[in-house]
């Protein structure tokens, strides 16, 4: 008997096994991160790495894995709805500063598309990869919709989105130490625009106002991308 035979490969049992493994490794990573708060120990970095090691070890492929754990990804839907509360509670700030936030989103959007396009061209990446890179700053549900629209590969985009989140949340902290940003608005926008969900989680740790601004900016960025996608598709094809 081989080691890879120890884990169930198909059906309900495999689904339960991989869901349990994902949740357990997430909590394990969070436990480690609490004791050793380094970038590599972030749950978004450590848990996937451990899972990939486990999957390679057990000869599991992505198709089987995601079939059992898709419900976890689907939970991003209710999470999106949950953002209604922090946004509602910060409505005074938002009513007062929406033009500033909108400016930030437009600047960030332009920069995201330009930098992804420019850097991908510079490094001679293929068209499909380049198109999949474009919507990576936006949160997963938006990004995957946009990627499909403009001719990218949604699955690939999801990977880039998560990478952006991991590194964005990490880089954001470092950037805040360098950039003299005085307003909570700017700090929140930086996280929400650059690192979507993971950035919002990080911004919530910086402060309540930063967290709410970050979630709002993330949603505005997603909406602007979804609205711009048909236009982009026209230009790119």
């Amino acid at each position, binding site marked *: 008997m081989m080691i890879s035979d120890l884990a169930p490969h198909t059906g309900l049992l495999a689904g339960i096994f991989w869901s349990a493994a*994902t949740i357990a490794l*997430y909590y394990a990573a969070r436990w480690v991160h609490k004791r050793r708060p380094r970038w590599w120990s972030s749950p*978004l970095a450590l848990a*996937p790495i451990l*899972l*990939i090691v486990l*999957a390679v070890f057990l000869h599991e*492929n*992505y198709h089987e894995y*995601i079939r059992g754990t898709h419900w*976890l990804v689907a*939970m991003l*839907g*209710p*999470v*999106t*709805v*949950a*953002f*209604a*509360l*922090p946004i509602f509670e910060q409505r005074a700030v938002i009513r007062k500063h929406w033009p*500033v936030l909108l*400016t*930030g989103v437009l600047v*960030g959007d332009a*920069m*995201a598309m330009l*930098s*992804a396009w420019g*850097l991908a061209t510079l*490094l001679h*990446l293929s068209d499909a990869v380049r198109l999949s*890179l474009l919507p990576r*700053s936006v949160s997963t*549900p938006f990004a995957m*919709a946009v990627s499909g629209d403009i001719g990218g590969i949604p699955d690939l985009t*999801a990977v*880039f989105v*998560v*990478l*952006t989140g991991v590194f*964005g949340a990490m880089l954001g902290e470092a*950037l805040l130490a360098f*950039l003299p*940003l*005085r*307003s909570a*608005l*700017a700090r929140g926008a*930086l996280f929400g*625009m*650059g690192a979507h*969900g993971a950035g*919002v*989680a990080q911004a919530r740790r910086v402060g309540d106002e930063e967290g709410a601004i970050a979630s709002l900016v993330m949603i505005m960025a*997603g*909406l602007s991308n*979804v609205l711009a*996608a048909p236009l982009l598709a026209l230009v790119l094809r």
Partner: protein
Amino acid sequence: MHSFNPRKLVVSSRLVMRHSRLLQGGALAGFWLLGEGVARISGLPIPGGIVGLALVLLLLASGRLKAISLRRGADWLLAEMLLFFIPAVLAVLDHREFLGLLGLKLLAVVLTGTLFVMGTTGVAVDLCCRLNVRLARHDDK
């Protein structure tokens, strides 16, 4: 002996709702499903979660829904948000070609691009804020 009092039942179920994050999480999922349905029927290219969010915001703003009855569920979901991103990363399993030079290139694009986006957004918003403050001071004079 206790007599059956419908009003008491409504009050106590409201109390349960205010304390159970699981029920509240379920309610948020309900709004998401509703949003999903609306998005599909109307054919709008907007994720169902966003439609659900707009719906909850409307209900909160109109006072039909109290923030306290969703507070715990929302805090819970938002705190565990990172868990729901993890399965997507495993897509790398189907793209072994990323383990070499291509992977390094992609990492470089993601890292530098994200740095650019965060830097410009933060600075742009901060400049706008300072400008606003200065304009406001000017108005006061």
